[in-house]
């Protein structure tokens, strides 16, 4: 690395870590885009790539994501990464394809790390919006599960729920997680995931308006039984 300013050197490092490109192509791309990172990505990706056997060459993977996070000064487990992924319509956690990443940034009107960092607080606030929370929550299922699996692994699900319900309080969330570990021990289906939010939204914690004859998924009915059993709620 020669004759590069501190900032540019950092940007170069970032770029390399994120895209996995060679220093040479990184430098090329950054120079071509006047050291604007977002544009640089664009340039970089629009270049004809050397034929590579690596199907992930067009993607930002776990490593890249963690670099991104450190640049943004957030923890990788910070829920804001979920919101970001949602904006980008990312298919899987800890992975961004080129289209997803660039497309998302474009939509957000972001062309630098700094701007992205500024946008973070806005993204956090989006979680307080009822409708957006609903969309983000439902998005999270597909995002958090393993590729090719239909259901979400229990541990991941519990982690996600803890994260999500930290933003939007649900008094029964801990009981729910305990119940699952105690009695269920299997993956979570999409329907159950979606219906749980419905349950948290519409049924009050005393379960006074819970309709046992309703179309709640089996697991939620079991949860209610569990709450009665453990005397968390009076019947």
């Amino acid at each position, binding site marked *: 690395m020669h004759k590069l300013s501190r900032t540019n050197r950092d940007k170069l490092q970032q770029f390399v870590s994120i895209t996995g490109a060679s220093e040479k192509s990184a430098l090329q791309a950054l120079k071509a885009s006047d050291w604007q990172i977002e544009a640089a990505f664009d340039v970089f990706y629009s270049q004809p790539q050397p034929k590579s056997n690596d199907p992930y060459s067009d993607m930002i993977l776990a490593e890249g994501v963690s670099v991104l996070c450190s640049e943004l000064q957030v923890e990788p487990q910070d829920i804001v990464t979920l919101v970001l992924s949602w904006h980008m319509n990312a298919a899987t956690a800890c992975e961004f394809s080129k289209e997803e990443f660039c497309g998302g940034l474009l939509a957000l009107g972001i062309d630098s790390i700094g701007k992205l960092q500024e946008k973070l607080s806005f993204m956090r606030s989006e979680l307080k919006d009822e409708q957006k929370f609903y969309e983000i929550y439902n998005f999270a299922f597909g995002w958090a599960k393993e590729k090719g699996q239909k259901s979400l692994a229990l541990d991941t699900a519990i982690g996600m729920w803890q994260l999500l319900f930290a933003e939007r309080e649900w008094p029964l969330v801990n009981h729910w997680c305990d119940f699952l570990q105690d009695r269920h021990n299997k993956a979570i289906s999409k329907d159950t995931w979606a219906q749980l939010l419905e349950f948290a939204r519409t049924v009050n914690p005393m379960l006074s308006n819970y309709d046992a*004859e*309703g179309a709640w998924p089996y697991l939620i009915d079991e949860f209610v039984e569990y709450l009665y059993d453990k005397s968390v709620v009076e019947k």
Partner: protein
Amino acid sequence: MSRQNVKPMTMDQGFELIDAAVTKLKRILEGKPEPAFGSHEYIENYTIVYNMCTQKPPDDLSQQLYDKYGGIFEDYDKHTMLPSIMEKHDEYMLRELSRMWDINKIMVRWLSHFFFYLDRYFITRRSLPSLTEVGMTCFRDHVYNNVHFNVKQVIIALIHKEREGQQIDSALLKNILDLFVQNGKGSMERYEDDFEKFFLQETASYYSRRSSSWILEDSCPEYMIKSEESLKKEKERVTHYLHSTTEPKLVEVVQTRLLVLVAKQLLEKESSGCSALLRDDKTDDLSRMYRLYHEIPKGLEPVAKAFRLHVTSEGNGLIKQAEDAATSGSVEEQVLVRKIIDLHDKYMAYVTDCFQNHTLFHKALKEAFEIFCNKKVAGSSSAELLATFCDNLFKKAGNDKSNDDSTIESTIDNVVKLLDYISDKDLFAEFYRKKQARRLLFGRFNDDHERSILTKLKGQFGGQFTSKMEGMVTDMQLAKDQQTGFEEHIKNGNTGKPKGVDFTVNVLTTGFWPSYKTSDLNLPLEMVNCIESFKAYYETKTKHRRLMWIYSLGICHLNGRFDPKPIELIVSTYQAAVLCAFNNTERLTYQELIEQLNLSHEDLVRVLHSLSCAKYKFLKKEPASKTISKTDSFEFNSKFTDKMRRIKVCIRLLCLFLQWMIAVEDVDKDRRYAIDASLVRIMKSRKVLPHQQLVSECVEQLSRMFKPDIKMIKKRIEDLISRDYLERDTENPNTFKYVA
């Protein structure tokens, strides 16, 4: 006589003449000595009126005559009739009234004849009430209206007397009540308001009092007899003197007081109520109960309810009995099922005889049976018990000649009836099929009986219910033919004759029969030859079919050449394989056996145990402990003997509990498929449906075979959602949509 010269009659003149006639009439009517009117008098009186009417105005006295006529009646009614009635009491009053009424009627007749000319022109011209009407109205206004209250009191008092057993003058009452009716002038108002209303009230309180005292003193049958009697008497009363329109109202009042208001107390009477009557076979009393309550709208409902409760408790009692009697968890199903069948026959007889086949009672019986027939008895479901019952019935039928065909047939009918009450019919089918398989394979069956029950089950529950079982029975038939063919084949020397070994094969169609596990048992050479020879024969019959040999179900007859005497041994194929291994060697260890025979450890242990540690020790075991271990060695027990010349030792390779578990699991699996299919079928046709309705329709569709568990349905719905057959409506998550 010419009219021109005659002076018109004056009013006074005319009236004087009329009065005279009226006085005469009154005397006649009052029974005083007076000659009757002759015809010339009649004509004279008529003519007086005629003349007075036809005189030229102002001498036309029609109006005055009309008024006079009315006046005559008014006068007589007020001043003669009414007082004479009022001064009397009780029955005498009634008689006097009756007399006056008759007198009035005659007076009206006569006087209207005299005054007839008025009717012809004056009245019609002026649209006035006719002479008859005037006479009757006067009576009503001046006599009836003033006496009816007291008269009614008297009548009611008399009726009360009659109810208490005394004789009264029915004819008199009939007349008086007729009078009431007639004074209504065409409507029943007077009768109803002035008499009937009070009569019904009085009747109501009378029967209330009766009912209160009877219900305490009398037993149910006695009470019913008294009620029946009372109703009969009241109906007679109507024919004797009450107006026919009173009947339905009267009957209703009596029924309400005697039967409806006390129904609960009556039916639930301790030792004589409905329950007791049913228990003690009191058909007459029950028939009476039916008769009495049948006439009352909705009257039979409490009776049907009592019936249902009684039958349910009887049934529950039988179940409890069976539970208590069950030793070591095994229920004596023969006894229990027979008792339930008897119970059914007994109470069905009540329904058809005493209760006249009324639908309410059929329904009550059905509901009662459905309750206790679905109870578990000592952990066994009724479906299983019934299947076991059938199994024993058919197994015994072969042996026990006293069970003749018609008894078997009627028992089969009863079984089918009982099955109708059991909700888990598919569970029955599964157990029945498994047991049927064993019966068929081990030769303990009667083709006619097997087919008979299947036909009846098919008729009641449809072909799908019985298709596998029928397939199995047919297979046995085909197997027989197959075997004949095979033996022919051998006789003709077509293949290697299996060296003096008689060999029978049953070829089963896989889909019909329960699944059996195969094993890679190494058969002794003699048996291998048999297998090969049959295989060759079978190839000639059909290509493209693969034979899977189930050795676990085979039976062998071996000649045991023991030193003392030879004994024939009837053992399973596995046991035979083990024994034959000793044909070539005196001694074999466990390890050697397992290598030679290629059996699983569990199977070998079981077989060796049955041959060396059980009742008959064909093999000597070293060490001679009670259990088999892998280090044991075995020797042919040449010294073995028994007084029998033929010994049968068969073992079940799967313990009963496991068999049961497999059956229940299979049924569960089938149910899951059935629920799935039903849900998809419903959603495909309805496209959109709320959760509740989907569940209830699904339950209904499946109710013919089993009662689906709501939780299972919910789980299947969720499964279908994850498999993208259904989805939730985004607006309303309680509703599902079909995903095409």
